[in-house]
């Protein structure tokens, strides 16, 4: 069964999704910018995939980020902590014609919700999963999360955290996820491109958004976002393009032995031909894993769509089977079923 049988001709605007509820995030929180980007993307998604405004469902767990559904005028559920993935999956399986968006935080997705996170990646329902990574528990006021760097002092790690953090991209790929992208709360253009790419990808599209929590983890992404260092510490990957970065796009990525290396064009005889060309569509996880892993200072952090591999969605597999069984089963209803097999008559 295809996701949308007949795309409707639909015109939507940002205003179709604006809510009348007060947005209660802290002033300066990165969540505000993400909300605006989502409001801007939904009309495009609706128009390009044929969803009317009532077809959007926004689902979340618990956390600052998870208050999101209240701030949009769509169908929505604010669930319980860590469980947005099965909530979204239940909705999508029950009605594949809906455009399902999942909003979650790093704690919601990877601490209490870690199991559902890896399972949604593996099962590949067509859900757009936006994970706000501020590397902290915001709503509960500043405890370390599974993405907090080792050694960082937080309210629950007064001696510095003892734990190696997850890298969400690595986790998604390790769980055999087919789509992973990374965006930044301070770059709305990139966010919108990535969100749209996620929507257009038919399958579970997991997007990590580096988000700043001004209150409890301010400037945690500073190394990546600082004006001075950002050109050297960010690379935006584009399909089919060489992996170049730096102020003048003078640096690039090369595979040396089994490892990535940062090289400079023109130095040590490096030419454009040495630079890797980005292919998000290969099912081979190794290279995507390396790209997702990259982090300053050794490497730039990768942004944009890192991995986007086509694969049957869960709901297509399930609903195709429904159609098949409907067409082939001789048992059409409960009366048939009850009378099938061994029965006997008492007179």
């Amino acid at each position, binding site marked *: 069964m295809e996701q949308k049988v007949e795309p409707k001709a639909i015109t939507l605007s940002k205003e179709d999704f604006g809510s009348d509820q007060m947005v209660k995030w802290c002033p300066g929180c990165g969540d505000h910018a993400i909300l605006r980007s989502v409001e801007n993307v939904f009309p495009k998604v609706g128009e390009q995939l044929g969803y009317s405004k009532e077809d959007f469902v926004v689902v979340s767990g618990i956390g600052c980020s998870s208050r999101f559904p209240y701030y949009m005028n769509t169908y*929505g559920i604010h669930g319980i902590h860590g469980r947005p993935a*099965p909530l979204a999956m*239940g909705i999508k*399986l029950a009605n594949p014609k809906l455009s399902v968006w999942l909003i979650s935080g790093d704690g919601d997705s990877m601490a209490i919700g870690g199991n559902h996170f890896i399972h949604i990646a593996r099962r590949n329902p067509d859900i757009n999963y936006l994970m706000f990574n501020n590397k902290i528990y915001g709503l509960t006021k500043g405890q370390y999360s599974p993405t907090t760097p080792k050694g960082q002092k937080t309210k629950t790690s007064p001696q510095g955290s003892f734990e190696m953090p997850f890298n969400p991209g690595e986790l998604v790929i390790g769980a055999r996820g087919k789509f992973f992208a990374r965006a930044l709360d301070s770059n709305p253009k990139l966010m919108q491109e990535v969100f749209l790419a996620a929507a257009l990808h038919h399958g579970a599209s997991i997007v990590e958004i580096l988000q700043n929590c001004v209150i409890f983890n301010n400037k945690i992404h500073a190394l990546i976002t600082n004006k001075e260092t950002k050109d050297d510490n960010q690379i935006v990957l584009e399909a089919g393009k060489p992996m170049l970065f730096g102020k003048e796009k003078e640096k690039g990525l090369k595979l040396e032995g089994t490892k990535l290396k940062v090289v400079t064009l023109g130095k040590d005889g490096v030419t454009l031909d040495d630079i890797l060309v980005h292919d998000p569509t290969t099912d081979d996880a190794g290279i995507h894993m390396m790209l997702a892993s990259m982090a300053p200072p050794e490497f730039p952090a990768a942004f944009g769509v890192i991995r986007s591999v086509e694969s049957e969605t869960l709901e297509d597999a399930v609903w195709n089977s429904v159609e098949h069984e409907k067409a082939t089963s001789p*048992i059409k*209803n*409960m*009366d048939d079923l009850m009378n099938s097999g*061994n029965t006997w*008559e008492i007179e």
Partner: protein
Amino acid sequence: MKKDKVVEIEEAVVRFAGDSGDGMQLTGSLFSDSTAFAGNDFATFPDFPSEIRAPQGTVSGVSGFQIHFGHKSIYTTGDLADVLVAMNPASLIANLKWVKNDAILIVNSDEFTDKNLEKAGYLTNPLDDETLSGHLVVQVPLNTLTYEAVKELDLDNKSVMKSKNMFALGIIFYLFNRDYTKTYSFFENKFKKNPLVVEANKKVLQAGYNFAETLEVIKNTFRIEKAELEKGRYRNVTGNQATAWGLMAAAERSGRNLFLGSYPITPATDILQELAKHKQFTCITQQAEDEIAGIVSTIGASYAGSMAVTTTSGPGLSLKSEAIGLAVMTELPMVIVDVQRGGPSTGLPTKSEQSDLMQALYGRNGDAPVIVIAATSATDAFYSAYEAAKLAMEHMTPVILLTDGSIGNGSEVFKIIKTADLPPINPPIAKANDPEYKPYKRNPQTLARQWAIPGTPGLRHRLGGLEKEDITGNVSHDPLNHEKMMQLRQEKVDKVADFIPELKIDGNEGADLLVVGWGSTYGVLMTTVEEMQNEGKSVSMVQFKHIMPLPKNVREVFSKFKKIVVCENNMGQFVNYLRMQLPEFRYEQYNKVQGLPFMVSELKQKFESLLNE
């Protein structure tokens, strides 16, 4: 030597026991089928270990199957067996306590080797000493005779031994005058791809039958008249299957797709397995990564407009507690089936118990009322599941349906009905663009809010676990609103009492003793009470199927009796619940927590002593 003597009897209990690999569950169910064809009423009780194939010949590996069948209506799986089939010493030693004093014991004498006797824990061979005196012991060299029966077929050793259960079945068929050829079609179906095996099984079955005919020790055979059942078409169902079917029937009648989010757990897995087979009914089953994902996906599917279900057993219900709270707060319909098993913790996973009642009622944070109903038998599981789904959707609330291992795995005769004859189900689905729609506006009769399904124009709204403002459903921290919503949620459940049947007294009002049960104890309480009534004892009974809310007339019913005894397979959960709900009465209690059903004999003794107090 054909026996001429056929003894007419009213009822009988047969127990099959062997190694886990001996196919006793299959043997039992083939005998059930034949019992059905013979027109008897029956109920069955499988009793197997939690290991898959514990070491051959040991007591831990023994798997049993008991069937109680008769001419009258059968409500229990039988206290003690009239006939025991014991495939080896371990099954004999493990089951001897479950047979009557003068039972017929059919034992596979080939297996009574020194090694096997030792494995079973016998110091001496019970076939040679006084252990079995009083019983009619039929020693059958089953292995030898099975080989004999198929020696001309080109079959490997393992396949031959796998069919020896059919030899035993053949003997029992003979004993109860059954037509063994009816079972042939089963072989033809099951071993479609292996005609040799079909042939072997037929031969072995027949050989068993014929062998029994020649046996001297068997002096006569038995016949049980067709049961006096209502006219109609019948079939055999297990409680788990009936539960699945009740749910599917409710989906069909309500016009909703069925969604099941579930994680396998004994003894509930069969429901998932049954529903998974019926994709043609748009029955979507999702085997979740865990019980939490199971119920949470169910909440999602319910929000999206499906008739949503999750199934589990005790430990799984624990894991679902938090999410049940979310379902209560969002007031979304769903059925949560708990097939109870022996607890606490992993407990006795393959045994039955009624010990999740308190958990079903109160096992979550905050005051979070839900409807709780309990099925009273394998066939009733069909109707209970149907009713659970109807109440969930019409009252927009989660419903917990309690069954248990004895219901789920047990099987009974089920009268086939027409789906159209079931009561209609009318969920309060909100209409597109209804200008009056408000997420938490309620129907004054039921206090149910409306079901506004994503995709419907004009009804966009948001739900969630934070306290909701009355009518609008916006998030609200207002103190008085909170108190009001607490009351509304409770009242909504209380009002369900207007939509469920009143309690029915079996027996006289004002009898000296009122026996109270709930759920799966129905059959055995009923049988006991009827027997005692026939003996002239002043005993009546009521069986509760609706637990939260209780039927409206409970107070009235209880006030007619001076002595009330509440019987249950736990430490006293329902009796305590009654003490809370109806503190004005005094309750005696009788509890059995052995992973086993009550026996008629022990109940009788208890009731008699209460009557004599």
